[in-house]
């Protein structure tokens, strides 16, 4: 299972880069994706997550070839 990971805005600064990719055998939750990709880095409060550009919760599972994005609260408009 190959998962693409993206970080935006202050979370990109926090992680230090904008993209990751993880290859894994079994089904993962979003929380597990975070832990694997960031090596269990502490998750900043209010971090949001989207899978394939839709908001999901941290317990949701991720499928092969999904794009998982982590980012801080949005501040557009």
């Amino acid at each position: 299972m190959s998962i693409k990971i993206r970080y935006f805005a202050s979370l990109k600064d926090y992680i230090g880069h904008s993209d990751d990719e993880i290859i894994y055998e079994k089904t993962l939750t979003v929380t597990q994706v975070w832990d694997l990709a960031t090596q269990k880095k502490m998750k900043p409060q209010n971090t949001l997550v989207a899978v394939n550009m839709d908001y999901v919760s941290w317990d949701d599972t991720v499928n092969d070839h999904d794009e998982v994005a982590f980012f801080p609260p949005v501040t557009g408009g």
Partner: protein
Amino acid sequence: MPVIIKNTPFEPYQSLQQYEKKTLCQNNAIGASNIFIGTMRDFNEGDQIKIMTLEHYPGMTEKQLNNIVDKAHQQWTLIDSLIIHRVGDILPNEPIVLVATWSSHRGDAFDACRFIMENLKSKAPFWKKERLIDEQERWVLSNTDGYHKT
């Protein structure tokens, strides 16, 4: 129901004029339109802002904005709507966002425009970084709720 992401400045009134001329000109059913324009202020949290950079998540931005617009068109009777949102470097006084709704009745135009705007503020993946006059940079932490007085 266009959703437009722009990395160059836009003039909101000219954009509206052109859009109406091109798209809505002969629609005599329009009785009401409501327009919101968000503009960059040069002060925030007591500090003077020199420039603002708007980052976004290409693809997800359009997807979320189109979702919001679809919901608005389901919930209210709208003839059309338009969203224009800037990304990239923005200077004080420049428009950041424009939301317009066209309807036969004013209640629908008002409600839908505000609904789109509040949802955009809370769901569209844009992030503002401010550069202060002393060159310090900082991310804007969160948007306020537009239904409460600030």
